[in-house]
Structures are given as C-alpha cells and as structure tokens.
C-alpha cells in the first residue's frame, strides 16, 4: 500500500513505529491536515470529500491543478505549494480514511 511513498517517508514511518507504543499514526496526517479547513476534518465534508478517495485520483487532480492558471481557482494556486512527495503522502492519507 505504501509503494507510492518515498524512502524518506518510509523512514519517517519507521521512526513513528519505533517511538509509539500503540499503532503509529499515518506519516502524512499532520501534512494532510492542511486540507481540513476546506475539505473538513479528515476530508469528510466541505468543498470535495477526500475521505476514501483513491490516492491516484487525488494525486492526479493535484498535479493537473498545478499546471492550470493559478488565479482562476484557489486550488490551482494552492496545489503549487506541495511537492510530489508531499502530494503522495497527502493522497495516501485520505485514501485510507474510512469512508
């Protein structure tokens, strides 16, 4: 399931695993929380429900938005703030939120 994640992300996951006594949180959780203000806590409401969406579709949408005119849509502007690795982590997080 983590094949989209980079080595750095997996390393981060490992750190979480070693330090937490219970199940570790997803390494993309706090990063993905940047989306909650407009897409609801854990992506469950708001402009577009992200909870349970496939990681590949979230990734593709973000990449498309990055290439569109920034001032035409707030997400076109917003998408530019996240690296490929970050988008993959965010997408993976939402894909695993129970829907």
């Amino acid at each position, binding site marked *: 399931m983590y094949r989209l994640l980079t080595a750095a992300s997996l390393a*981060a996951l490992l*750190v*979480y695993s070693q*330090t*937490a*006594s*219970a*199940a570790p*949180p997803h390494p993309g*959780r*706090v*990063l993905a*929380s*940047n989306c*909650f*203000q*407009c*897409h*609801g*806590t854990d992506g469950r*409401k*708001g*402009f577009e429900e992200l909870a349970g969406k496939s990681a590949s579709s979230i990734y593709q949408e973000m990449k498309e938005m990055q290439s569109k*005119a*920034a*001032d*035409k849509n*707030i997400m076109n*502007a*917003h998408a*530019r*703030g*996240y690296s490929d690795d*970050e988008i993959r982590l965010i997408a993976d997080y939402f894909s695993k939120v129970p829907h």
Partner: protein
Amino acid sequence: MKRRQFIGLFGASALGLVLPELALGEDRRRSSGSTTTTTTASSSLVPTDTGSVGSVVIVGGGMAGATAAKFLRLWGGSNVQVTLVDQNATYSSNIMSNLVLNGSTTMSQLTYNYNTLTSAYGVKFVQGSVVGVVPPVGSTAGSVRLADGRVLFGTKIILAPGIEFDDVPGLTPALQENYVPHAWRAGAQTTKLASQIRNMRAGGTFIMTIPASPYRCPPGPYERACVVADYLKRNKPGSRVIVLDANPFIQAERTNFERAFNVTHAGVIDYRPGQSLTGVTVSITGGKHAVTTSSGTEYADVLNVIPSHRAGKIITDNPVLANVGGRWAGVDVRSYESTSVPNVYVIGDSASSGQPKAGHIANQEAKLCADAIARALRGDLTPNPAPKTNSACYSPITADTASWLTVVYGYDAVNKKMVAVPGAGPIEAAAATQDNFNDMKKWFATLMSDSFA
C-alpha cells in the same frame, strides 16, 4: 503552611509567569498527580490509546485554542486530558464579521460554543479569567491560575490569547465602546459600528484608520472599507469612505483592492497610505469626531479607529515569553513551543511565526502544535522536519462578490521561520466574483467546523 507558600508563589506571578525555579515546590508536585481535568466519556472520535499520556491546559478558546483542543484529543487520544479555558462561554467569530456592518449577518449568527468539543471530544471547558501561569518543568505539571482562585494543572500549557490593542491618544475603552468602536475583536463593538453606519446621514463621511503591520487579518481593513462603501452607495447616497492607512501600501490582495478602490467603489473610497495616527477627539454630543494623522485632521460622522496590536496580556506581562520586541512571542514553528520557556506553546495571533495573523492559519498552527505535543507525550521528541501551513481567505468586495488570497508556507531551516513556498503565493483571485462569494460561505462553514465541531 506549605499551602500558604504555594499561594504566595502564585501571588508573585499575578502579573504573568514566574520563572520556572520559583515554581518548584512540593505542593505543586503533589498536585500534578491529580490534575483538575476530569474529561467526559470519550466518543468513538477519540482513540482510547495512542501511547500518549499527559494533560494539557489551553488558554484561549479562539480559532487556535479550540482547534488545538480538538486535535489533541483526536490525535492524542483519551489519555491526554485537555482543559480549554476562556473568559467567555462562547466565541464570536472575527471572520465574516465585516458582513455585520452591511446587515448581511449578525453577531449572534457568528457565535460558536464549545459543546461539541466537550461532548464529542471530551475536552473540559472552563470559563475563567487567567491571571498567572507557571510553566511545566520536565514531567512536573505547570499550572494556570484563574482570577477566582481556581488552578488548572498541565504537563504542557498552550497560550492562545489572541491580540491586545495599544492605546490611542484621545480614546478610552468607554469611548471606544460607545462612540468610536474599533470592532476589530468581533462582538458588541461590531454591532455598535453597524448601527452607527445604519444611522449615518446620506452624504456623510465614514473614516477608518488602519494600524501598522503586523495586525490581525491583513486583508480585513480593506475588505471593511469595501463592504461599508458598497452599503453606503446603495443606502446613503453621496457618502464617502476615507481610509487612513499607517502602512505605505495595501497589505494584502493589492490588485483586487486597488481595483475595488479605483473602479468598483471609485468616488466613494478615498484611500490614503502612509498616515500615522496621532490622536482622536471624540464628539459625545452627536457632532463630528476629529481624527488627526501626520498629514492633518479629518472629520467623521462615523469613525472607526483600529488600534495597533500586540500579543495578549498573558504574553506581554512576561518579558521572557514576549521575546520579540516585547510585543510578540517567539516560537519554534516546528512545534510552536516558546523559544524561551520550555513546555509552554504559543499559537495564533500572539505568536511571531513569519505568518499572517488570521483564523485559517491559526487553525493550522494549532494542528502542528497538537501533533508535536501528542508525539512528545508518547516520548517522540523528533521535531517535525518539514512543517507546512497554509493561509487561505476570502474577502467580500461588495454585498455579493468576493476575492480570495492564498499562500502555502514551508520551513526555512536556516532562518528557522515559515516562508512562502516559491510559486505558491501570495496569489490572489483574478477578479471579485459571485462564485467566490458563495465559496466564501462554504470555506467559512467548513473552517469553523474543523475548529469547533
């Protein structure tokens, strides 16, 4: 005897924090084992065991404090006891409050309570006025003392007191409440200013002054000028809006606001940058108020002076915490822990973080802080290597159009600050539109839900 010493130590801290070494005492250590927090039964939203154990007291129930409370429970789990303190039982939203001024909404519609935080997340809410804070030291709890004598204990303390206003020559709090409201902390003054605008004569003059940055909500004053101008055009023909800005230029969404001032509201808004406020003379007999700047004196039928800002009193009362010019709290933006007092965190408008002072980003600061604390409380002290935040906001330009602004911030490890990600802002909307106005309502509802529900 010990009890008396304990009170005495707190007494010494009445003006703010005492130094950690002053706070070390047997009584306090003993008390730390029985924190006053008794959280209610957890719902399924709060995990039972994340490995995090501790207690957190949060001072201030605004956008930052409320969000931190929710996410500490959501991410920290049921063994992280969270107490949220505010002097008011409800929160009045600053966001959207300019729309009270044109009658589109009311303060009661912009009022939020803490019921969901307590019932669904098991946060303990305490209404009270904070008069002293003793920082936690290691695993020894710190404490927050209230004016009525109650003391709350926490192994971590978050301060989210928002802003305080500087004095304006010629204005007292009573004059502000009754004659020249700032309406920059939403509430009774917002309603007062709305009523003054509604009762203003046609052909009258509304004057507002904008303080030097940093102030809360960078686009907010310009948005206010637009909303008021739009209202006056339709309801009080011939009226003018004079904007006296202490800053050298428009501080946010410059393209949209310049278009609004020069085209949309041309002939109504008279925008004057670089105007330092020197004094106000209030008329309490119904005459005009005088407002004097470096460029001269103007006379207003309705006067709205927004004073310059500083961090909340609990911060500025303690010079150690207010380590940025004595006015703001320096923080490590990877966790929002104070750069001078360990185990005390400052989020929202009181923090000096390189980011704007606004509700949307305060929400995100709170989540980064909650994540760092939840991890610390299970022994993971690894700093977040790449904290990310975003600022997004919509600004009404008329009664049914709005623009927007967004910036994504990333961590500059060299300067230890949050900086705009290259290419990711500030970016503003191509134009003010009705679609943006509708999006604004959805953004606001979702944001408030992420913080309070």
